[in-house]
């Protein structure tokens, strides 16, 4: 009986939420386009989807957009990579060696709780807004989620598993490889979702300051010259990238660690 009913459910019923969402998005853009039939259109303050689309074609054909994205992505990945490489081992060490944990926990908590983005002007002055300066801002903002999640992940390691591996004659390294890394991994993936958001903020902050290329720079420059269509094009691009990154990680979490779904 169960199969019968699932089969009989129509396409519309099964994808109802998706269809409603898609409909809302289409309606939104249509309304945006249509509203200027009644409302006076001032291209210095607002734009409309048709103009955004036209401007977008320009951005792509001139190669500007890809260039800016490429420029921004380098510090984004460098900073994030460094955050993983430093944050994860540090977090694991803090969890695994209680004294290291005792020593660093309050300090890290203080850092994590402060709005570190406030250090950005300083970092910019120290390191400039080239690749390295931006990478360092990205690293500063995104390392703490990794530290804390790895730390929490080690605490969540099942003691029984440790004893099992020990009793089978596993040494310290085997413990790390067979028990600790697998247990900590879901926490690190979850951390990366938070870290990606912070890394995007970091790139934008760096580029708003004084950069001469990059997607953040493009947005603020198009704003300065009142090129609303291309400004919106860049903003929408950042939104799409952000959604792909976070939803992609979420999807990976569900696929790779189904037992953790619902946390």
């Amino acid at each position, binding site marked *: *009986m*169960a199969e*019968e*009913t*699932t089969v009989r*459910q129509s396409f519309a019923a099964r994808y109802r939420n998706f269809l409603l969402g898609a409909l809302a998005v289409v309606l939104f853009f249509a309304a945006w386009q249509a509203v200027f039939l009644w409302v006076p259109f001032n291209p210095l303050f607002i734009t409309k989807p048709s103009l955004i689309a036209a401007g977008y074609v320009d951005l792509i054909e001139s190669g500007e957009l890809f260039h800016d994205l490429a420029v921004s992505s380098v510090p984004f990945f460098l900073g994030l990579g460094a955050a993983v490489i430093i944050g994860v081992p540090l977090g694991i060490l803090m969890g695994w060696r209680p004294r290291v944990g005792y020593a660093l926990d309050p300090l890290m908590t203080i850092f994590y709780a402060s709005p570190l983005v406030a250090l950005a002007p300083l970092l910019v002055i120290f390191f400039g807004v080239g690749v390295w300066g931006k990478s360092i801002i990205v690293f500063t903002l995104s390392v703490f989620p990794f530290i804390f999640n790895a730390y929490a992940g080690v605490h969540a390691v099942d003691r029984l598993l440790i004893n099992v591996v020990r009793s089978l004659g596993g040494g310290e390294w085997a413990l790390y490889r067979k028990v600790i890394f697998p247990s900590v991994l879901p926490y690190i993936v979850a951390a990366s979702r938070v870290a990606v958001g912070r890394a995007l903020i970091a790139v934008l902050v760096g580029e708003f300051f004084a950069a001469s290329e990059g997607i953040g720079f493009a947005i603020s420059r198009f704003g300065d010259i009142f090129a609303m269509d291309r400004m919106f094009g860049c903003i929408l691009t950042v939104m799409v990238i952000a959604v792909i990154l976070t939803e992609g990680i979420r999807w990976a979490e569900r696929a790779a660690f189904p037992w953790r779904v619902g946390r």
Partner: protein
Amino acid sequence: MTGYIQGRNVGLTFRPPNRAPVRALGGFDIEVEEGEFLSIVGPSGCGKSTFLSILLGLIHPDSGEVLMHGRRISGPGSDRAMVFQEFGLLPWRTVQHNIELGLELKKVPKEKRRAAAARLVSLVGLTGFEAHYPHELSGGMKQRVGLARALATDPEVLLMDEPFAALDAQTRDLMQVELLRIWREAKKTVLFVTHQIDEAIYLSDRVMVMSKRPGRAKRIFAIKLPRPREYEMRVTPEFNDLKLEIWNTLKDEIAA
């Protein structure tokens, strides 16, 4: 004379999303007199709670009709109140405020609510627990709060869904006596769902046995024991014969 509450050919199918539909009631008929005490027994999952929810006006049948005073029930009303099977107490409200809930929604002034709640608290034997939160009560105490809450709005019809299931045997006996007293004095109509045949016979004017799902009225037993009921009546041969007969009617539905 038309019945006070009438259900004719009531049918209801639950259609949970992405799961197979469940036909909870089908062709269910019932007639309740004003002031009557009617018990309903039936196998688990046969639609007893569902029927009470329909009477309460929370859900609507998809076939047939349920009338009260000859009018179709279209939604909740202050002439009916339910004692819920799973208590349904608001966890963030104290005993007192849980009891006041219905009165609050009827916009009864604060003083009157206080007074009514105080009276009911002592009626259900919870004096001293007015300021406790539900998680600080035992199952039986929670159930008594639920009873007090239903009584607070002084409904004509009391719908009781296994109200004594969480009580210990002694409290249960006491509450049964108490319920009979309230019923007699306040002249309420009671629909009482239970799994205990003893309890059904002891309390009721009539006992309805329902079939397994989709639930129908299988047979109705009139209980001719004199009133007021006495505890000793439970050990009379008459009582035991009835009990056996009802059990035999019910047994087929459970076994099958």
